[in-house]
């Protein structure tokens, strides 16, 4: 009786009940979001980058060539790479050390220490950077007070280019190391204990265990975490904006802060878009490697 009873209404309803239709409808908000709020703005940014300052005329790639001829922009490229690479290396090393130290102590004591060590990652960056800014204050710096106690002169933390660069890297390392620690700790816990025992029976020392057991087992997690962090650090805005806003004399700008200054503060939207688009190549390369790593890992997991 059932199929005969509703001849035509059934077909529409059947279509709506089909798995793929249901799935598509469920994903529709996501598709709209990605399309309208990520893909469209990215393409729009490329279009904007090809307009003149008043956005009246199409100028092709001349914004890009103009920027590449400016020494300020060379400094921005250099500074972005220096900032991202040294901060990521520092974070990866400190995170690695922390994860190993943490792995040495019994599980139930890890909780409280992990809780305390993650605090830099939990406090919103814009707010904790304010705290750092205050620590680096030219006249009231609490660091300089400590240094004065042992007879060292006041350091112009954010006043000179070299120290300002150091401070930015320091704050980013402080903020990001806990994340690395958590990722590495999770990876360390998944290394079977028997491997270490087998290595110990074969007479491997601490260093050899690290070199031949730990590092190969963690290789995937390390590479994915480093690439992720490279992208995020490269695109950082908050730390530099709050600490120096690019100063002194535009020597500490990175892509995002320079794009903000040019595009929003000076009102040259096309040039700002051009600056930020220079991030795309490196983001694309890093994403390619991450995707490859993820794909390889899921293949290994399926196998």
């Amino acid at each position, binding site marked *: 009786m059932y199929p005969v009873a509703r001849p035509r209404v059934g077909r529409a309803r059947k279509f709506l009940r089909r798995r793929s239709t249901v799935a598509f409808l469920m994903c529709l908000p996501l598709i709209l979001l990605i399309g309208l709020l990520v893909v469209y703005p990215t393409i729009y940014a490329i279009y904007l980058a090809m307009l003149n300052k008043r956005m009246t005329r199409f100028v092709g790639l001349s914004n890009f060539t103009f920027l590449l001829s400016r020494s300020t922009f060379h400094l921005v490229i250099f500074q972005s790479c220096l900032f991202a690479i040294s901060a990521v290396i520092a974070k990866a090393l400190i995170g690695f050390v922390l994860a190993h130290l943490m792995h040495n102590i019994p599980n139930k004591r890890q909780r409280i220490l992990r809780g305390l*060590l993650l605090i830099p990652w939990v406090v919103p960056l814009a707010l904790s950077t304010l705290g750092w800014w205050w620590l680096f204050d030219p006249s009231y710096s609490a660091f300089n007070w400590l240094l004065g106690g042992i007879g060292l002169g006041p350091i112009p933390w954010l006043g000179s280019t070299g120290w300002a660069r150091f401070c930015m890297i320091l704050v980013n390392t402080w903020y990001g190391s806990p994340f690395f620690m958590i990722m590495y700790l999770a990876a360390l816990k998944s290394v079977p204990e028997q491997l270490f025992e087998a290595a110990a029976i074969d007479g491997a020392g601490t260093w050899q265990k690290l070199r031949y057991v730990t590092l190969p087992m963690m290789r995937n997690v390390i590479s994915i975490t480093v690439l992720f962090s490279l992208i995020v650090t490269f695109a950082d805005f908050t730390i530099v*904006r709050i600490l120096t806003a690019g100063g002194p004399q535009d020597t500490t700008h990175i892509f995002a802060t320079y794009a903000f200054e040019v595009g929003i503060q000076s009102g040259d939207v096309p040039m700002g878009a051009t600056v930020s688009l220079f991030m795309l190549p490196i983001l694309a390369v890093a994403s390619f490697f991450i995707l490859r790593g993820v794909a390889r890992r899921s293949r290994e997991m399926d196998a």
Partner: protein
Amino acid sequence: MTSASQEALAGLPVARRRLRSLSRQRRWALWGSYAALAVFVVMFLVPPFHMLVTSFKTSGEISEQKVSPWFVAHPTLSNYVELLHDAHFLGFFYNSAKVTVCVVGLSMAISIFAAFGLARMRFFGSGVLATGVFLTYLIPDSLLFIPFFQIIGKLGLINNAWGMVIVYPTLAVPFCTWIMIGYFASIPKELDEAALIDGASWLQILFRVFIPVAMPGIIAATIFAFTVSWGQFIYPLAYLYSSDQMVLTVGIISDLIRADVFQWGKIMAGSLMAAAPPVLIYAFLMDYYVAGLTAGATKG
């Protein structure tokens, strides 16, 4: 070690002696690790501690510089009390809460439905979409803020906190979807097959089976969405400029710094109060927080 115990040790068979030296090595490694971790904890907590100390000081005590900047001679709560009576500051709090609640609700709704579709069913282009979600996660806010400036301007939402509700989901949705796909995919297929045979619709399966079972994942994703939208900085800095529309992250800087007068005590008190909601959530739900952090990279 005393000579008596050394003699006792010499009497032991070699194997046991080695065992004991091994356990001594272990103990040293243990105490060394504790000591090193304690040093790291102290270093990591220097800035929050200094913020806390400063927040208890009056502007007078800060500028006098008589006592060490690391201690407070006459602790006072006046900074906190004044801020809590400051209509602007309360307004920032309200705006932050308003924007965050809307964004979290919106993001979770979008990502739970999408993750369910992507984890359990196939349709034309679903594989591409899953990769697309991942790639979106890699496009940073510092690249999107310039085109958004134009788009939001055209929509007439510049200097309007509601504009943030439109742009914030780009930060939270991709990662939340990614986490939820991982959690949903780990639910055994037998469960939804059994429900289908019992005549449940897809929506019923989602709400009666998947959401209850994947609750830890949903909590982790919600915490992530909350943290991200509460702490977002570049969008509000670029699009909001009047005090009645600002959110906490930018309001503290622009409202408490007037004409080069830095009210440091108040800035620190305000920052700590603004940081309180995410820190409290973290304190009570640390395990979910950590699970969400690692799920993004390990489930995939």
